[in-house]
Protein backbone atom coordinates (compact mmCIF):
# COMPACT_ATOMS: atom_id res chain seq x y z
CA UNK A 1 0.00 0.00 0.00
CA UNK A 2 1.46 3.35 -1.01
CA UNK A 3 0.92 6.83 0.38
CA UNK A 4 -1.79 7.64 -2.18
CA UNK A 5 -3.82 4.60 -1.17
CA UNK A 6 -3.44 5.45 2.48
CA UNK A 7 -4.55 9.06 1.96
CA UNK A 8 -7.66 7.90 0.13
CA UNK A 9 -8.55 5.51 2.97
CA UNK A 10 -7.43 7.79 5.78
CA UNK A 11 -10.78 9.24 6.85
CA UNK A 12 -12.51 5.87 6.72
CA UNK A 13 -9.61 4.41 8.70
CA UNK A 14 -9.87 7.10 11.38
CA UNK A 15 -13.63 6.53 11.53
CA UNK A 16 -13.06 2.78 12.04
CA UNK A 17 -15.03 2.05 8.92
CA UNK A 18 -12.47 -0.12 7.14
CA UNK A 19 -12.59 -3.86 7.42
CA UNK A 20 -9.89 -5.45 9.55
CA UNK A 21 -7.37 -6.51 6.84
CA UNK A 22 -7.45 -3.09 5.17
CA UNK A 23 -7.28 -1.34 8.50
CA UNK A 24 -4.22 -3.37 9.48
CA UNK A 25 -2.55 -2.50 6.14
CA UNK A 26 -3.17 1.21 6.70
CA UNK A 27 -1.90 0.98 10.27
CA UNK A 28 1.27 -0.78 9.08
CA UNK A 29 1.88 1.95 6.52
CA UNK A 30 1.35 4.65 9.13
CA UNK A 31 3.80 2.91 11.45
CA UNK A 32 6.51 3.27 8.81
CA UNK A 33 5.63 6.54 7.04
CA UNK A 34 6.26 9.73 8.92
CA UNK A 35 4.39 11.97 6.45
CA UNK A 36 1.20 9.90 6.42
CA UNK A 37 1.34 9.43 10.18
CA UNK A 38 1.53 13.20 10.54
CA UNK A 39 -1.46 13.61 8.24
CA UNK A 40 -3.38 11.12 10.33
CA UNK A 41 -2.52 13.01 13.50
CA UNK A 42 -3.66 16.31 12.01
CA UNK A 43 -6.94 14.80 10.83
CA UNK A 44 -7.43 13.21 14.24
CA UNK A 45 -6.87 16.51 16.02
CA UNK A 46 -9.28 18.36 13.71
CA UNK A 47 -11.97 15.77 14.38
CA UNK A 48 -11.31 15.98 18.09
CA UNK A 49 -11.42 19.76 18.06
CA UNK A 50 -14.61 19.70 16.02
CA UNK A 51 -16.22 17.23 18.40
CA UNK A 52 -15.32 19.46 21.35
CA UNK A 53 -16.91 22.43 19.59
CA UNK A 54 -20.20 20.85 18.53
CA UNK A 55 -20.84 17.89 20.80
CA UNK A 56 -22.50 18.69 24.09
CA UNK A 57 -21.06 17.45 27.29
CA UNK A 58 -23.73 15.31 28.95
CA UNK A 59 -23.24 17.08 32.28
CA UNK A 60 -23.96 20.45 30.67
CA UNK A 61 -27.32 19.36 29.31
CA UNK A 62 -30.49 20.38 31.10
CA UNK A 63 -32.57 17.88 33.04
CA UNK A 64 -35.02 17.31 30.25
CA UNK A 65 -34.64 13.59 30.04
CA UNK A 66 -34.79 13.20 33.80
CA UNK A 67 -38.06 15.09 33.88
CA UNK A 68 -39.33 13.15 30.92
CA UNK A 69 -38.39 9.92 32.60
CA UNK A 70 -40.17 10.75 35.87
CA UNK A 71 -43.29 12.08 34.21
CA UNK A 72 -43.59 9.38 31.61
CA UNK A 73 -43.28 6.68 34.22
CA UNK A 74 -45.76 8.40 36.47
CA UNK A 75 -48.26 9.02 33.68
CA UNK A 76 -48.10 5.58 32.19
CA UNK A 77 -48.50 4.00 35.60
CA UNK A 78 -51.86 5.74 35.62
CA UNK A 79 -52.66 4.47 32.17
CA UNK A 80 -51.68 0.96 33.02
CA UNK A 81 -54.01 1.10 35.99
CA UNK A 82 -56.84 2.19 33.76
CA UNK A 83 -56.02 -0.53 31.29
CA UNK A 84 -55.90 -3.17 33.98
CA UNK A 85 -59.18 -1.91 35.44
CA UNK A 86 -60.88 -2.97 32.26
CA UNK A 87 -59.01 -6.28 32.29
CA UNK A 88 -57.24 -5.43 29.09
CA UNK A 89 -53.66 -6.41 28.40
CA UNK A 90 -51.21 -3.54 28.09
CA UNK A 91 -50.25 -4.66 24.63
CA UNK A 92 -53.61 -3.54 23.30
CA UNK A 93 -53.50 -0.65 20.86
CA UNK A 94 -55.86 1.38 23.09
CA UNK A 95 -53.38 1.15 25.89
CA UNK A 96 -50.62 2.35 23.65
CA UNK A 97 -52.77 5.25 22.50
CA UNK A 98 -53.48 6.27 26.08
CA UNK A 99 -49.83 6.01 26.90
CA UNK A 100 -49.05 8.21 23.90
CA UNK A 101 -51.41 10.87 25.15
CA UNK A 102 -49.96 10.65 28.62
CA UNK A 103 -46.44 10.75 27.24
CA UNK A 104 -47.28 13.84 25.22
CA UNK A 105 -48.46 15.55 28.36
CA UNK A 106 -45.44 14.28 30.22
CA UNK A 107 -43.07 15.66 27.65
CA UNK A 108 -44.77 19.02 27.76
CA UNK A 109 -44.59 19.02 31.55
CA UNK A 110 -41.00 17.84 31.39
CA UNK A 111 -40.06 20.49 28.88
CA UNK A 112 -41.78 23.13 30.94
CA UNK A 113 -39.78 22.00 33.92
CA UNK A 114 -36.68 22.24 31.83
CA UNK A 115 -37.38 25.81 30.77
CA UNK A 116 -38.28 26.83 34.30
CA UNK A 117 -35.53 24.97 36.11
CA UNK A 118 -32.92 24.82 33.41
CA UNK A 119 -30.10 25.13 35.87
CA UNK A 120 -30.88 21.97 37.82
CA UNK A 121 -28.40 20.04 35.72
CA UNK A 122 -29.32 16.55 36.79
CA UNK A 123 -26.57 14.38 35.38
CA UNK A 124 -28.03 11.31 33.78
CA UNK A 125 -24.85 9.38 33.44
CA UNK A 126 -24.30 7.83 36.89
CA UNK A 127 -27.39 5.66 36.93
CA UNK A 128 -27.21 4.71 33.30
CA UNK A 129 -23.76 3.32 32.72
CA UNK A 130 -25.20 -0.17 32.51
CA UNK A 131 -27.84 1.11 30.04
CA UNK A 132 -25.09 2.46 27.83
CA UNK A 133 -23.20 -0.82 27.94
CA UNK A 134 -26.32 -2.79 27.05
CA UNK A 135 -27.35 -0.30 24.35
CA UNK A 136 -23.96 -0.53 22.72
CA UNK A 137 -24.02 -4.30 22.87
CA UNK A 138 -27.50 -4.37 21.35
CA UNK A 139 -26.35 -2.00 18.64
CA UNK A 140 -23.57 -4.43 17.84
CA UNK A 141 -25.97 -7.37 17.74
CA UNK A 142 -28.43 -5.42 15.59
CA UNK A 143 -25.72 -4.56 13.12
CA UNK A 144 -25.21 -8.24 12.43
CA UNK A 145 -21.82 -8.91 13.98
CA UNK A 146 -19.72 -6.18 12.50
CA UNK A 147 -16.41 -6.94 14.12
CA UNK A 148 -13.47 -4.79 13.07
CA UNK A 149 -11.02 -7.51 13.95
CA UNK A 150 -11.97 -11.15 13.92
CA UNK A 151 -9.56 -13.30 15.83
CA UNK A 152 -9.52 -15.68 18.75
CA UNK A 153 -5.98 -14.65 19.62
CA UNK A 154 -6.24 -12.32 22.58
CA UNK A 155 -2.83 -10.75 21.92
CA UNK A 156 -3.87 -9.80 18.38
CA UNK A 157 -7.19 -8.42 19.52
CA UNK A 158 -5.64 -6.55 22.48
CA UNK A 159 -2.99 -5.02 20.26
CA UNK A 160 -5.56 -3.94 17.67
CA UNK A 161 -7.85 -2.46 20.31
CA UNK A 162 -4.98 -0.60 21.91
CA UNK A 163 -3.92 0.86 18.56
CA UNK A 164 -7.46 2.14 18.02
CA UNK A 165 -8.39 3.29 21.52
CA UNK A 166 -5.07 3.81 23.33
CA UNK A 167 -6.51 1.59 26.06
CA UNK A 168 -4.39 -1.32 27.21
CA UNK A 169 -7.20 -3.79 27.68
CA UNK A 170 -6.22 -7.10 29.26
CA UNK A 171 -8.44 -9.79 27.80
CA UNK A 172 -9.17 -12.89 29.87
CA UNK A 173 -7.44 -16.15 29.14
CA UNK A 174 -9.12 -17.47 26.00
CA UNK A 175 -8.02 -21.00 26.84
CA UNK A 176 -11.02 -21.08 29.16
CA UNK A 177 -13.45 -23.31 27.19
CA UNK A 178 -16.41 -21.37 28.56
CA UNK A 179 -15.49 -18.15 26.83
CA UNK A 180 -14.28 -18.13 23.25
CA UNK A 181 -12.98 -14.83 21.93
CA UNK A 182 -14.49 -13.85 18.56
CA UNK A 183 -12.89 -10.44 17.97
CA UNK A 184 -13.20 -6.77 18.77
CA UNK A 185 -14.11 -3.30 17.68
CA UNK A 186 -13.80 0.25 18.84
CA UNK A 187 -16.88 1.88 20.30
CA UNK A 188 -17.89 4.99 22.20
CA UNK A 189 -19.50 4.80 25.61
CA UNK A 190 -20.40 7.85 27.67
CA UNK A 191 -18.56 9.95 25.13
CA UNK A 192 -15.27 8.11 25.62
CA UNK A 193 -13.50 5.76 23.24
CA UNK A 194 -13.91 2.24 24.54
CA UNK A 195 -12.45 -1.11 23.59
CA UNK A 196 -15.11 -3.72 22.83
CA UNK A 197 -14.37 -7.44 22.72
CA UNK A 198 -16.90 -10.11 21.83
CA UNK A 199 -17.05 -13.61 23.27
CA UNK A 200 -19.19 -16.64 22.80
CA UNK A 201 -20.05 -18.30 26.08
CA UNK A 202 -21.74 -21.65 25.71
CA UNK A 203 -23.52 -20.44 22.58
CA UNK A 204 -24.47 -17.04 24.02
CA UNK A 205 -22.82 -13.87 22.72
CA UNK A 206 -21.26 -11.70 25.40
CA UNK A 207 -19.47 -8.37 25.26
CA UNK A 208 -16.58 -7.11 27.31
CA UNK A 209 -15.84 -3.39 27.15
CA UNK A 210 -13.01 -1.42 28.71
CA UNK A 211 -13.11 2.33 29.12
CA UNK A 212 -11.28 4.92 31.22
CA UNK A 213 -12.32 4.90 34.90
CA UNK A 214 -13.26 8.56 34.88
CA UNK A 215 -15.79 8.02 32.07
CA UNK A 216 -18.34 6.21 34.17
CA UNK A 217 -19.63 5.95 37.68
CA UNK A 218 -20.34 2.46 38.98
CA UNK A 219 -21.74 3.53 42.32
CA UNK A 220 -25.33 3.30 41.12
CA UNK A 221 -24.87 -0.40 40.43
CA UNK A 222 -24.99 -2.97 43.17
CA UNK A 223 -21.62 -3.77 44.71
CA UNK A 224 -20.89 -7.45 45.24
CA UNK A 225 -17.81 -9.34 46.36
CA UNK A 226 -16.59 -11.99 43.97
CA UNK A 227 -13.24 -13.80 43.91
CA UNK A 228 -12.02 -11.48 46.65
CA UNK A 229 -12.65 -8.24 44.81
CA UNK A 230 -15.48 -5.76 44.40
CA UNK A 231 -17.67 -6.06 41.34
CA UNK A 232 -20.72 -4.03 40.37
CA UNK A 233 -23.75 -5.68 38.93
CA UNK A 234 -26.97 -4.43 37.32
CA UNK A 235 -29.84 -6.13 35.60
CA UNK A 236 -31.17 -4.44 32.47
CA UNK A 237 -34.07 -6.39 31.03
CA UNK A 238 -32.77 -9.80 30.06
CA UNK A 239 -29.17 -8.58 30.27
CA UNK A 240 -26.78 -8.73 33.16
CA UNK A 241 -24.02 -6.15 33.34
CA UNK A 242 -21.07 -6.96 35.55
CA UNK A 243 -18.31 -4.40 35.99
CA UNK A 244 -15.02 -4.14 37.77
CA UNK A 245 -12.30 -1.53 38.14
CA UNK A 246 -8.83 -2.63 37.22
CA UNK A 247 -6.06 -0.03 37.16
CA UNK A 248 -7.17 3.01 35.20
CA UNK A 249 -9.90 1.13 33.40
CA UNK A 250 -13.41 -0.06 34.04
CA UNK A 251 -14.21 -3.45 32.55
CA UNK A 252 -17.87 -4.26 31.96
CA UNK A 253 -19.24 -7.55 30.68
CA UNK A 254 -22.79 -7.87 29.35
CA UNK A 255 -24.83 -10.83 28.18
CA UNK A 256 -28.12 -12.60 28.69
CA UNK A 257 -26.45 -14.75 31.29
CA UNK A 258 -26.44 -14.89 35.08
CA UNK A 259 -23.80 -12.92 36.90
CA UNK A 260 -21.81 -15.99 37.94
CA UNK A 261 -21.17 -16.91 34.32
CA UNK A 262 -19.92 -13.45 33.46
CA UNK A 263 -17.27 -13.39 36.17
CA UNK A 264 -14.86 -15.41 34.03
CA UNK A 265 -14.69 -12.46 31.62
CA UNK A 266 -13.47 -10.19 34.38
CA UNK A 267 -10.76 -12.40 35.76
CA UNK A 268 -7.29 -10.96 35.54
CA UNK A 269 -4.22 -13.08 34.99
CA UNK A 270 -3.45 -12.59 38.67
CA UNK A 271 -6.81 -14.16 39.57
CA UNK A 272 -5.99 -17.10 37.33
CA UNK A 273 -2.55 -17.54 38.91
CA UNK A 274 -3.87 -17.38 42.45
CA UNK A 275 -6.49 -19.97 41.53
CA UNK A 276 -3.79 -22.27 40.21
Amino acid at each position, binding site marked *: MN*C*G*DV*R*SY*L*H*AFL*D*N*ELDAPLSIDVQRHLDGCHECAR*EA*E*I*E*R*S*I*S*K*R*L*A*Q*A*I*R*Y*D*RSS*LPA*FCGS*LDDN*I*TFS*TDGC*QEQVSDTSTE*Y*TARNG*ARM*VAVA*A*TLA*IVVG*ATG*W*FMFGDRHED*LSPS*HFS*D*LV*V*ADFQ*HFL*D*EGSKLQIESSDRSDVSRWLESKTQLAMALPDSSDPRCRLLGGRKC*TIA*GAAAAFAVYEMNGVTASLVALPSHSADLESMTAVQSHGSTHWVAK*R*GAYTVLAKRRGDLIYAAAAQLPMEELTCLLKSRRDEKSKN
Partner: protein
Amino acid sequence: MESAVDVFLRHIRPQWTAMYSVARRYTGDEDAARDLVQETLLRAWRGFAPDDTRTYNRSWVFVIMRSAMLDWQRKVDRRITMVSTPCGELTELAPTDSTEPFAPLPNMTEERFREFLDDTVVQALDALDPSFREVIVLSVAGGLGYRDIAEVMDCPAGTVMSRLSRARRTLRENLASYARQTGFLKESRS
Protein backbone atom coordinates in the same frame (compact mmCIF):
# COMPACT_ATOMS: atom_id res chain seq x y z
CA MET B 1 -41.08 -7.43 33.03
CA GLU B 2 -39.97 -4.16 31.44
CA SER B 3 -42.73 -1.73 30.58
CA ALA B 4 -43.00 -0.11 27.14
CA VAL B 5 -41.78 3.14 28.65
CA ASP B 6 -38.73 1.48 30.17
CA VAL B 7 -37.88 -0.07 26.83
CA PHE B 8 -38.42 3.24 25.04
CA LEU B 9 -36.24 5.13 27.50
CA ARG B 10 -33.58 2.44 27.29
CA HIS B 11 -33.34 3.18 23.58
CA ILE B 12 -33.44 6.94 24.00
CA ARG B 13 -31.10 7.52 26.95
CA PRO B 14 -27.86 6.57 25.20
CA GLN B 15 -28.81 8.90 22.33
CA TRP B 16 -29.68 11.88 24.45
CA THR B 17 -26.48 13.89 24.15
CA ALA B 18 -26.13 13.11 20.47
CA MET B 19 -29.75 14.03 19.76
CA TYR B 20 -29.38 17.40 21.39
CA SER B 21 -26.04 18.07 19.71
CA VAL B 22 -27.37 17.21 16.25
CA ALA B 23 -30.58 19.19 16.81
CA ARG B 24 -28.50 22.19 17.81
CA ARG B 25 -26.56 22.06 14.53
CA TYR B 26 -29.67 21.30 12.48
CA THR B 27 -31.49 24.34 13.81
CA GLY B 28 -28.64 26.69 14.67
CA ASP B 29 -30.51 27.84 17.75
CA GLU B 30 -30.84 26.59 21.34
CA ASP B 31 -34.61 27.05 21.61
CA ALA B 32 -35.32 25.52 18.24
CA ALA B 33 -33.07 22.59 19.14
CA ARG B 34 -35.18 21.93 22.25
CA ASP B 35 -38.33 22.08 20.16
CA LEU B 36 -36.87 19.73 17.60
CA VAL B 37 -35.77 17.21 20.23
CA GLN B 38 -39.19 17.37 21.83
CA GLU B 39 -40.91 16.85 18.49
CA THR B 40 -38.58 13.96 17.72
CA LEU B 41 -39.33 12.28 21.05
CA LEU B 42 -43.06 12.63 20.51
CA ARG B 43 -42.89 11.15 17.04
CA ALA B 44 -40.58 8.39 18.20
CA TRP B 45 -42.88 7.47 21.06
CA ARG B 46 -45.98 7.51 18.85
CA GLY B 47 -44.39 5.05 16.45
CA PHE B 48 -42.75 2.93 19.12
CA ALA B 49 -43.92 -0.65 19.52
CA PRO B 50 -41.71 -2.64 21.88
CA ASP B 51 -43.11 -5.95 20.69
CA ASP B 52 -42.51 -5.08 17.08
CA THR B 53 -39.84 -7.14 15.38
CA ARG B 54 -38.25 -4.09 13.77
CA THR B 55 -34.90 -2.99 15.02
CA TYR B 56 -34.52 0.23 16.90
CA ASN B 57 -30.94 0.88 16.00
CA ARG B 58 -28.87 3.98 16.53
CA SER B 59 -30.10 5.74 13.40
CA TRP B 60 -33.76 5.37 14.35
CA VAL B 61 -34.25 8.65 16.23
CA PHE B 62 -32.11 10.57 13.76
CA VAL B 63 -34.27 9.42 10.85
CA ILE B 64 -37.25 10.80 12.78
CA MET B 65 -35.41 13.98 13.71
CA ARG B 66 -34.43 14.67 10.11
CA SER B 67 -37.98 14.09 8.95
CA ALA B 68 -39.30 16.47 11.64
CA MET B 69 -36.69 19.01 10.68
CA LEU B 70 -37.66 18.83 7.00
CA ASP B 71 -41.34 19.20 7.91
CA TRP B 72 -40.55 22.31 9.90
CA GLN B 73 -38.49 23.66 7.09
CA ARG B 74 -41.37 23.18 4.66
CA LYS B 75 -44.06 24.53 6.96
CA VAL B 76 -42.32 27.29 8.80
CA ASP B 77 -38.90 27.91 7.29
CA ARG B 78 -37.88 29.94 10.28
CA ARG B 79 -34.82 29.03 12.26
CA ILE B 80 -33.76 26.00 10.30
CA THR B 81 -30.33 26.49 8.85
CA MET B 82 -29.58 22.96 7.73
CA VAL B 83 -30.86 22.69 4.20
CA SER B 84 -30.58 19.19 2.93
CA THR B 85 -29.42 18.45 -0.56
CA PRO B 86 -31.05 15.55 -2.35
CA CYS B 87 -28.75 12.55 -2.34
CA GLY B 88 -27.29 11.55 -5.64
CA GLU B 89 -26.44 15.08 -6.65
CA LEU B 90 -22.88 14.69 -5.56
CA THR B 91 -22.41 11.00 -6.12
CA GLU B 92 -21.22 11.47 -9.68
CA LEU B 93 -18.32 13.59 -8.56
CA ALA B 94 -15.04 11.77 -8.43
CA PRO B 95 -13.72 11.73 -4.90
CA THR B 96 -10.98 14.31 -4.62
CA ASP B 97 -8.78 11.98 -2.67
CA SER B 98 -8.51 9.45 -5.48
CA THR B 99 -7.70 12.02 -8.16
CA GLU B 100 -5.57 14.24 -5.99
CA PRO B 101 -4.19 12.12 -3.20
CA PHE B 102 -1.45 14.63 -2.58
CA ALA B 103 -3.37 17.83 -3.20
CA PRO B 104 -1.59 20.40 -1.07
CA LEU B 105 -3.29 20.80 2.24
CA PRO B 106 -2.71 23.61 4.67
CA ASN B 107 0.54 23.15 6.46
CA MET B 108 -0.49 23.37 10.06
CA THR B 109 0.64 21.40 13.01
CA GLU B 110 -1.90 19.50 15.06
CA GLU B 111 -1.15 21.78 18.02
CA ARG B 112 -2.21 24.80 15.99
CA PHE B 113 -5.58 23.23 15.19
CA ARG B 114 -6.16 22.64 18.87
CA GLU B 115 -5.76 26.35 19.53
CA PHE B 116 -8.76 27.34 17.46
CA LEU B 117 -11.68 28.67 19.45
CA ASP B 118 -15.05 26.93 19.37
CA ASP B 119 -16.56 29.83 17.45
CA THR B 120 -13.92 29.58 14.75
CA VAL B 121 -14.46 25.87 14.32
CA VAL B 122 -18.23 26.31 14.17
CA GLN B 123 -17.82 29.14 11.64
CA ALA B 124 -15.70 26.88 9.45
CA LEU B 125 -18.32 24.17 9.75
CA ASP B 126 -21.17 26.53 8.92
CA ALA B 127 -19.32 27.70 5.83
CA LEU B 128 -19.56 24.20 4.34
CA ASP B 129 -22.10 23.20 1.74
CA PRO B 130 -25.21 22.04 3.70
CA SER B 131 -24.97 18.45 2.53
CA PHE B 132 -21.33 18.31 3.63
CA ARG B 133 -22.18 19.95 6.90
CA GLU B 134 -24.95 17.49 7.67
CA VAL B 135 -22.79 14.45 7.10
CA ILE B 136 -20.15 15.83 9.44
CA VAL B 137 -22.73 16.73 12.07
CA LEU B 138 -24.25 13.24 12.00
CA SER B 139 -20.81 11.68 12.21
CA VAL B 140 -19.20 13.89 14.84
CA ALA B 141 -22.12 15.16 16.92
CA GLY B 142 -24.39 12.17 16.33
CA GLY B 143 -21.64 9.57 16.63
CA LEU B 144 -23.16 7.62 13.74
CA GLY B 145 -21.27 5.23 11.51
CA TYR B 146 -21.39 5.43 7.72
CA ARG B 147 -24.21 2.91 7.39
CA ASP B 148 -26.32 4.72 9.97
CA ILE B 149 -25.72 8.07 8.30
CA ALA B 150 -26.68 6.55 4.96
CA GLU B 151 -29.92 5.37 6.53
CA VAL B 152 -30.66 8.78 8.02
CA MET B 153 -29.91 10.63 4.79
CA ASP B 154 -31.42 7.90 2.65
CA CYS B 155 -28.42 7.58 0.38
CA PRO B 156 -25.73 4.97 -0.34
CA ALA B 157 -22.94 4.47 2.20
CA GLY B 158 -20.42 5.25 -0.56
CA THR B 159 -21.92 8.70 -0.91
CA VAL B 160 -21.56 9.24 2.81
CA MET B 161 -17.93 8.18 2.65
CA SER B 162 -17.04 10.52 -0.22
CA ARG B 163 -19.00 13.42 1.24
CA LEU B 164 -17.33 13.03 4.61
CA SER B 165 -13.92 12.94 3.03
CA ARG B 166 -14.58 16.04 0.94
CA ALA B 167 -16.25 17.79 3.85
CA ARG B 168 -13.28 17.23 6.13
CA ARG B 169 -10.86 18.41 3.51
CA THR B 170 -12.88 21.59 2.94
CA LEU B 171 -13.22 22.16 6.66
CA ARG B 172 -9.47 21.93 7.04
CA GLU B 173 -9.01 24.39 4.18
CA ASN B 174 -11.55 26.76 5.76
CA LEU B 175 -9.70 26.65 9.05
CA ALA B 176 -6.38 27.27 7.35
CA SER B 177 -7.86 30.14 5.36
CA TYR B 178 -9.10 31.70 8.58
CA ALA B 179 -5.68 31.18 10.11
CA ARG B 180 -4.00 32.90 7.16
CA GLN B 181 -6.33 35.87 7.33
CA THR B 182 -5.69 36.37 11.00
CA GLY B 183 -1.96 35.76 10.82
CA PHE B 184 -2.41 32.65 12.92
CA LEU B 185 -0.79 30.40 10.34
CA LYS B 186 2.28 32.52 9.63
CA GLU B 187 3.84 31.64 12.94
CA SER B 188 3.52 27.91 12.38
CA ARG B 189 5.44 27.99 9.09
CA SER B 190 9.17 27.90 9.25
